[in-house]
């Protein structure tokens, strides 16, 4: 179909990052970097051209995932999707992020989310239905899923 996604993983748990990387590559996309802290994440964002960054809220230097999202928004380089076990920490405006995949996610849920995001990045708005485990931010909800907004 369309060009695969270039994905940046921002996650402090090695195991989860590793598995996420496998799933993303199984789905035919490319993982171009893995950052464990907000510092690493900023450097990678500035140095690379990721289409999308999966960002955990809790990183190795604390609950700094929202700061990373803000940084990416200011850079205007890529989209952000939060991946967190603590979605209540996400600010109301989602710091500009597309949405959130709440942990624990299922393998199928993540695959559906990847398909949905692939469409959303390459040919917005997505044509697939919004996957069950994926919540859109209010801003993207009005653009990508106007009927459910």
């Amino acid at each position: 179909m369309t060009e695969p996604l270039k994905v940046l993983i921002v996650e402090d748990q090695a195991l989860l990052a590793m598995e996420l990387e496998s799933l993303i590559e199984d789905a035919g996309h490319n993982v171009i970097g893995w950052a464990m802290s907000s510092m690493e994440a900023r450097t990678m964002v500035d140095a690379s051209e990721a289409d999308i960054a999966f960002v955990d809220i809790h990183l190795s230097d604390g609950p700094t995932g929202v700061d990373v999202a803000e940084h990416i928004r200011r850079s205007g380089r890529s989209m952000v999707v939060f991946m967190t076990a603590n979605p209540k920490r996400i600010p109301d405006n989602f710091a500009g992020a597309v949405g959130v995949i709440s942990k624990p996610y299922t393998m199928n849920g993540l695959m559906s989310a990847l398909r949905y995001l692939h469409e959303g990045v390459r040919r917005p708005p997505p044509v697939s239905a919004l996957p069950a485990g994926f919540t859109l931010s209010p801003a993207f909800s009005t653009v990508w899923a106007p009927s459910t907004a």
Partner: protein
Amino acid sequence: MDEKRTREPPDAWHMTDDLHVEHGKGDPFAAAIRATRMSMLITDPRKPDNPIVFANDSFLRLTGYAREEIMGKNCRFLQGPDTDPDAIEELRKAIAEGNDISVDLLNYRKDGSSFWNALYISPVSNDKGELLFFFASQLDVTDRKQSEHRITADKERFEEAVKERTAELQAALETQTALLHEVDHRVKNNLQMISSLILMQSRTIKDEAVRNSLATMLERIEALSTVHRRLYQSKDVSQFDVSDFARDLVSDLLAASGRPQIKSKLDLEPIVVPADKATPVALIVNELITNALKHAFKDNAAPGRIGVKMSQPDGHLIIEVSDDGVGMNGANGDASFGMRLIRQLGRQLHADVEWRNSTPGTHVVIKMPNGPQSKGDAS
């Protein structure tokens, strides 16, 4: 009755400037005022500084003054250092305007001791509307005032104590909530890690049967994870929406099956179960749906249909999962473990589990008691 006194005009006593002399002695009303236990005064606003022109004995007893000390004086000698200036101003205004007034005032006796005076003053005018007198009565309400103050002080003390206790409880609640969030966060992360470990392991396995077995294991763990995620995302952690869970599970599994020719038919009433039943119910639902998907349709290209129905007639939850596949005869070892799981969980839930071999396919009915439904469903 004394002849001489009765000859006085009945109202003579209040038409004179000096009421404490003999005038009015024959008037029963005047006698009553002189003798009553209620402290009473009359002042004359037509004279300079509105002086006292009559005081009864009760007034003298209340204030400790002798009659000659107070006659001809303005009443303000009763005021003292702690008398409320606002109350005095209120009083002054009423007198200046010729209105009546009722006010509680802190007054002082001759010996300097204070008492609370429930003062009532009313103007007395003649037929032409000219102001002649002010009539004042005093009631010692010190006891009442003191208990009022005591009650106010008690109330403030209680309110303070309640505020402190509330703050303590609030702090305890916040600590507990933070702790709960932390635990919830860790449970979610750990569930995610268990899934990741299984997935990673299964990637290294060549044997398809073992890989399938791990995949089934993963689905069960993911069902548990989803229950946990949904419970702690909802506002009410004590109740679990089974219908929503089933709807998402079916769309999730069908999307992942890569078999678009299999369609689902959902007939789901909104049904909640208590949190303690959430896990077994979710596991049963997961088992029924994955079983149907995996084992009912042998021919990968043939069309198929999975039906899920949930209803709750008279205090029961009924879950029905049906397919139009090959029926139960095709069940292999993995499916029979799935059936055992369903039976055991069914026992835990006091559910009746019924497998029907329908033509074509399989129809499973789970019927379990599900208490009186929660608020909102009472009608």
